[in-house]
């Protein structure tokens, strides 16, 4: 029974890795600008995320090795530096954006400037990442993340999308000059959803949870349930934005605007629920991001790591964690809006995506690690397709951002 409660690992991975400031931003903007016309991109990203999460979970459960350590072992330290450095750049930016998202959520409740509240967000993440056991990090955001269902309830309370809006599902309305924006959002949705830190975190989480070769069914269900939950949350934000914001010509370019979608059906409570959702998803993502960075570096260099260890037992791991929070604090001093930073980070993640996904093809076919649990041929074909999509997204993300003005 306790093992089955581990599905929360999938839910928290989804809340932190799937649902975060970037996903809320891109989903809100997608619905406000193109109605339901970008739901296909979310569904595509969901399928990709489910496949990758299942594979990385299976790999770690069977081989008892986290993904980062396996990349180094199998492909050598020099190759490993590429995904590591790309991760440090992309996730460093994303961590700052998530902390900014938490600060904005606090600002929506207190009315204080988010700039003042940013250090408060850093302290909260530091305390949780430094002292809280893995169970707390899993269960806290997972339980509160259920508030995300408010968007689903909101869709029903609003009576669902109009007939005209439903048609945008298969026939998106793209005005002249908006095509770059449309494709940029596709790239941003894929980048925001398939963040490699999600894979590093989930892989390390399966080790922290003590999963083994007997946990493969649990892993599969967790991947489906977790990413499915994340996808549902993301899609309902798109629908609510299409119902509430699009008719008002509001493009959802700030997080507060997306909160109006819940204030419309639920009033003050709705706006407060949105602030809670924003806080919890960004907290989950910030924890996941900073831990994934620390896991990645510690595992790559072969240092002791783990949230269930005391800081003194995994000194390097905990030091890196603090270091990245300090870096985030410094990046924040530049003064970039969290939402813009989240979109930019999603673009950078998209740019580096193939570097983190390429090792899948190799390690998932290595019998030394996986025995008879290696990838089936059809799974390898799907990984190749994912890599192709990641490659296209990678080379088009930056030009699209420049052409569309960053969404």
């Amino acid at each position: 029974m306790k093992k089955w409660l581990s599905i929360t690992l999938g839910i928290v991975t989804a809340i932190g890795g799937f649902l975060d400031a970037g996903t809320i931003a891109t989903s809100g903007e997608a619905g406000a600008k193109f109605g339901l016309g970008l739901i296909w991109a979310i569904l595509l990203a969901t399928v990709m995320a489910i496949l990758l999460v299942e594979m990385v979970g299976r790999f770690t459960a069977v081989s008892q090795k986290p993904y980062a350590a396996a990349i180094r072992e199998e492909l050598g330290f020099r190759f490993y530096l590429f995904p590591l450095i790309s991760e440090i750049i992309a996730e460093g930016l994303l961590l700052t954006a998530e902390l900014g998202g938490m600060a904005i959520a606090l600002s929506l409740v207190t009315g204080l400037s988010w700039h003042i509240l940013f250090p408060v967000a850093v302290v909260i993440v530091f305390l949780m990442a430094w002292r809280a056991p893995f169970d707390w990090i899993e269960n806290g955001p997972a339980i509160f993340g259920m508030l995300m269902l408010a968007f689903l309830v909101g869709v029903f309370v609003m009576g669902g999308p109009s007939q005209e809006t439903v048609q945008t599902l298969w026939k998106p309305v793209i005005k002249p000059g908006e095509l770059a924006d449309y494709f940029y959002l596709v790239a941003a949705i894929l980048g925001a959803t398939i963040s490699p830190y999600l894979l590093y975190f989930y892989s390390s989480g399966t080790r922290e949870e003590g999963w083994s070769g007997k946990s493969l069914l649990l892993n599969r269900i967790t991947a489906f349930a977790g990413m499915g939950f994340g996808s549902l949350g993301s899609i309902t934000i798109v629908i609510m934005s299409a119902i509430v914001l699009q008719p008002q010509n509001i493009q959802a370019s700030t997080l507060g605007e997306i909160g109006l979608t819940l204030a419309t059906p639920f009033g003050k409570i709705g706006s407060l629920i949105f602030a809670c959702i924003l806080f919890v998803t960004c907290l989950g993502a910030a924890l996941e991001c900073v831990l994934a960075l620390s896991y990645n570096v510690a595992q790559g260099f072969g240092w002791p790591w783990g949230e269930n260890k005391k800081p003194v037992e995994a000194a390097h791991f905990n030091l890196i964690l603090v270091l990245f929070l300090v870096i985030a604090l410094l990046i924040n001093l530049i003064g970039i809006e969290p939402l813009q930073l989240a979109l930019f980070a999603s673009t950078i993640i998209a740019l580096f995506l193939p570097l983190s996904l390429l090792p899948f093809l190799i390690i998932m076919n290595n019998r030394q690690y996986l025995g008879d649990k290696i990838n089936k041929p059809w799974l390898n074909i799907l990984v190749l397709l994912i890599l192709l999509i990641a490659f296209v997204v990678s080379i088009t993300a930056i030009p699209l951002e420049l052409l569309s003005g960053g969404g």
Partner: protein
Amino acid sequence: MIQITGLSVVQTTTPQHHKPSRYTHLVVLLPLCALLLITTGCQFKQSAFALMAGNTGSSFAAAAMTLDYAHKGSVTATYARSAFQSYQSQLQNVDQQLSARAGAPDNRTIQELLKLYQPAMQAINHPCLEAACHWQAQITALNQASQAFLKAGE
């Protein structure tokens, strides 16, 4: 079964024996075509002016809705205050940048937009979140500016 290991990849891709397959060409050509389409399409992107005008109009519309909701009791005053801080940073210095943007219309149109921008920005900088002040007038100013900027951005 596809068996790809790090070793076999290294062994089979030495420069002397490597002959790119048609699939390799496809993998290279497809993204290049996409890139070409992105960088050359005239209708593919909006002008810098249209982009800025559209974003400004959208932010004014969001501000009007937020102010309306604050007085209807749909959002708290603190929520509205925080949201207005974001609108403020979105809309800052638009008046100074608008005419310099590529695709900007004639000076008269810019001046007409700026006439609506000033009172709307006053509402953004000092939103009436108390019942005592003229919040309806602010909503009117915000809506007028929103419609004008959105039209200019079309």
